[in-house]
């Protein structure tokens, strides 16, 4: 029997599932996808090898036997650039990252100079479209555990996911500890590098404090599941095991945007933050796509049944990180669709429906983690987050609901001082195991004998495990101590972080971050909705310099105030009307004894609902037809239909007039 699956993504326009009203994702569909997406023989060999090693030993994962994965002198460290990146950009990046590269060189080459590698230029860098195996061949490596003599275990990719694809990162991550950074601004690289160095050299330490932020939106199975079966057990386990840590658990009813702000840079900011929620998803052309994809949908959202378009006050995005946010030294784990980033093409659709579906102008890293990492007052050290869809099945394996061992082990490893790249190996282990099982299941059975539910469960769990990516240097670890660096000292250090040397600031203006300049593509892709501004209220805002005079009464304040109130209301109305008018509902009640009828909360009680029509903006129509003595009550139905028609016409006319009103006010104040 086919089952519906739940995933952690919400479409901003509809307030409904990101795949649309008409698309219900079932196990049958996933199984179809899975059948078409077996591993390549090389990747399967790699996964199998990884699984065999995992079965043999539990202390060390991707790295070869006998190597301490917490010691860079034994594991090595590399930085990887795209092969085609212009030399000028490479030089600028190396200059901006110099504090970090110098530190890692010192650490990784302490015993063997070759354990530090800069993978740069047309010969060594990652070529467009090449597989991880082709890449490793250049260094004498094939599948198997990392051997730092050939290629270091820790690998920092410096490049966009468009130039060095996510799939490359996932596959390399199977045996290596991989992280990625990619910023548009050269100064951001410098700020991140300085922040990591400050943490790694013990200049900045945060208190031993963790926070678990679990959203559970009304009527939403995905977040209710993650709050109950992920956040709760993780937090409980941590409280029990780590008595020297302060553990904050933010209950769903308090998991609002305002609360999250206090944990993401505000006064409650911990050293380790774990969030579980939906991630925001936008249609191509939406001006918010590049800025807010993967933003955290908070408890403020009334849930899928409300069917309200989601505006910025319901989610926490990069724009909500305050300029004076105190995130210096923090590590975050964001469990949400697109929390880490998004590919250009939707793989699921291509596999399921045989056609390409473009979901972004190009693959990119979500802005929220990037803003945390490059904060000018001192950046976060890294963010572990999901690329593409996050599936609820990763915490529900074959009906065993409390299956969060992978998450738990990762948190444990981080708390025990492991570098992030090594701590997250549990996900790679899970990926290797499940992908091997999935491939074998598909190879050993024929489609007609396959259990769709089982295959779908494997596929989604496999994707979940595979698509977690570490954004940041994979060698960073929690910067905690018994004594926290006092806030004034943190602020002082944070201020230094943004003081880029002349060599960096001088090159910043002409810096081209990627192989291609994608600015025009982004503009074209998001120009669809950008031109319309219905924020009439903004017209009334005074410049900051004039704000101080607000309290001074003027003779004209009477008219001005009433007009201002009116315009603000009109502006709010317009926004609401254009956002919320997704459906029109006309209801018809009748009653014999009308004196008993009461009107409460938009409904008549004590009367019979005889006909109802709900027309969605996409054309879907729901009708309840009145009956009388077992037959359709034609008379009532006819008048009901007339009223529906009038309601449609009146709304159209009203909207037109209101837009006219907005335009006329604009012409007055411009």
């Amino acid at each position, binding site marked *: 029997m086919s089952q519906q699956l739940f995933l952690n993504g919400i479409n901003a326009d509809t307030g409904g599932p990101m795949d649309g009203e008409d698309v219900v994702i079932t196990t049958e569909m996933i199984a179809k996808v899975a059948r078409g997406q077996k591993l390549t023989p090389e990747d399967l060999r790699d996964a199998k090898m990884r699984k065999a090693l995992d079965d043999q030993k539990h202390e060390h994962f991707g790295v070869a036997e006998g190597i301490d994965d917490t010691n860079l002198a034994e594991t090595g460290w590399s930085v990887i650039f795209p092969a085609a990146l212009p030399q000028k950009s490479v030089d600028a990046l190396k200059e901006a990252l110099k504090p970090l590269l110098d530190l890692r060189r010192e650490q990784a080459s302490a015993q063997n100079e070759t354990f530090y590698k800069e993978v740069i230029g047309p010969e060594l860098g990652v070529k467009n479209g090449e597989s991880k195996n082709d890449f490793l061949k250049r260094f004498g490596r094939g599948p198997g555990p990392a051997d730092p003599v050939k290629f270091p275990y820790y690998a920092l990719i410096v490049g966009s996911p468009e130039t060095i694809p996510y799939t490359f990162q996932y596959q390399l991550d199977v045996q290596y500890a991989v992280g990625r950074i990619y910023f548009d601004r050269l100064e951001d690289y410098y700020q991140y590098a300085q922040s990591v160095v400050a943490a790694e050299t013990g200049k900045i330490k945060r208190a031993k404090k963790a926070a678990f932020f679990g959203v559970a939106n009304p009527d939403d199975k995905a977040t209710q599941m993650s709050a109950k079966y992920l956040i709760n057990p993780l937090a409980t386990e941590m409280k029990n095991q780590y008595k020297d840590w302060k553990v904050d658990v933010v209950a769903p009813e308090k998991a609002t945007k305002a609360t999250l702000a206090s944990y993401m840079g505000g006064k409650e900011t911990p050293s380790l933050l774990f969030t579980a929620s939906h991630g925001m998803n936008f249609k191509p052309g939406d001006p918010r796509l590049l800025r807010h994809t993967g933003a955290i949908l908070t408890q403020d959202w009334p849930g899928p049944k409300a069917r309200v378009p989601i505006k910025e006050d319901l989610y926490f995005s990069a724009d909500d990180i305050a300029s004076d946010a105190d995130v210096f030294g923090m590590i975050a784990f964001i469990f949400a669709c697109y929390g880490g980033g998004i590919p250009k093409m939707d793989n699921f659709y291509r596999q399921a429906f045989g056609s390409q579906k473009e979901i972004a102008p190009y693959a990119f890293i979500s802005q929220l983690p990037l803003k945390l990492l490059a904060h000018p007052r001192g950046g976060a050290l890294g963010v572990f987050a999901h690329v593409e869809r996050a599936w609820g099945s990763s915490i529900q394996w074959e009906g065993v609901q409390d299956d969060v061992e992978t998450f738990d082990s990762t948190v444990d490893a981080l708390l025990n001082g492991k570098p992030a790249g090594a701590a997250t190996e549990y996900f790679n282990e899970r990926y290797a195991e499940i992908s091997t099982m999935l491939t074998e299941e598909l190879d050993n059975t024929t489609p007609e004998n396959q259990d769709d539910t089982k295959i779908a469960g494997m596929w989604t769990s496999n994707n979940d495990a595979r698509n977690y990516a570490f954004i940041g240097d994979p060698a960073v670890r929690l910067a905690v101590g018994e004594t926290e660096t006092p806030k004034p000292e943190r602020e002082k250090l944070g201020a230094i972080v943004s003081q880029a040397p002349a060599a960096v600031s001088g090159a910043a203006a002409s810096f081209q971050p990627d192989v291609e300049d994608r600015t025009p593509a982004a503009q074209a892709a998001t120009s669809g909705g950008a031109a319309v501004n219905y924020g009439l209220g903004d017209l*009334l*805002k*005074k*410049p900051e310099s*004039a704000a101080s*005079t607000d309290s001074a009464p*003027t*003779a*004209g304040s*009477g*008219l*001005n105030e*009433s*007009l*201002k*109130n*009116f315009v603000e*209301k009109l502006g709010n*109305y317009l926004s609401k*009307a254009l956002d*919320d*008018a997704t459906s*029109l*509902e*006309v*209801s*018809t*009640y*009748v*009653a*014999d*004894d*009308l*004196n008993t*009828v*009461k*009107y409460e909360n*938009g*409904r*008549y009680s004590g*009367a019979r609902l005889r006909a109802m029509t709900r027309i969605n903006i996409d054309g879907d129509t729901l009708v309840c037809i009145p009956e009388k003595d077992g037959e359709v009550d034609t*008379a*009532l139905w*006819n*008048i009901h239909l*007339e*009223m529906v028609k*009038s*309601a*449609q016409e*009146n*709304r159209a006319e*009203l909207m037109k*007039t209101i837009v*006219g*009103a907005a335009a*006329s006010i604009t*012409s*007055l*104040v411009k």
Partner: protein
Amino acid sequence: MMPIFETTETSDPLGLWASAPQPESVHFGIGDEAPPPPPDVPVFRVNLPGNTRSADQVFENSETWFKQVNAALNHVPNRLESLVSQMQARQAAGNAVSFDVTSLQNEPGPESDLLRLLEDVSKNEPVSFSVGDEFGAVREPISQAWQNAKAQFDALLAQINREVLHFVWVETKINGQMIARSEVEWNGDATTLWVETASEEQKSLHHRTLNVAARSRNLKLRLFVTVASGAAKVTTLMAAGMPMLALPAVYQYVVSILRQVKQLQTVS
């Protein structure tokens, strides 16, 4: 005699609905009393005669009225354009004071009232011209005429706020008996309660009541649009910072024109 079109609003600038106090209770049937609408919710009620032909006539008259009001509002921009051109021509000809009352003798009523009010405004220098101060730092005229105009314009804004941006109740009575009531949301959603015994003909009449209420609501907003556009037009005659102050003056002007239309209708 009970007015045919009545509303709990204090006035109707369009002149169709007569003001009636908000009832404490509404009769749905003989001797029956139903709960009153929620406080502050505008009620629009049409009291129809029992004779179907007469009831039809009521709605036909309202249709005529809508056409006339729309035509008058359509004509406002041209009239204002013409006035502005004349005033600019006078300025160009060397008349120093653009709103000199003595120069208005040949203008028709609404135009001359408008210019008087604009003259009141022009006598008051703005306190500040800085960007963003449009709503915050201008000095209003103190003449009684201007203060009256301002109070009426404020009332219009308040009315639109209530009627357009919230929900209203629309009721139809036939021969004094309520046959239906609809709660109409700002977005057009409607919930209608019918008396079970209402005939098809009576239902059709309530449908027409709903249309009149919806069109009136929309027309009130259109009135605002006309006033705002008109204020922008006459701004060319005024100093910077003044457009907001022109709104009450232009509103008075448009209302005067509508009054003329109503008078013409009454005469005909």
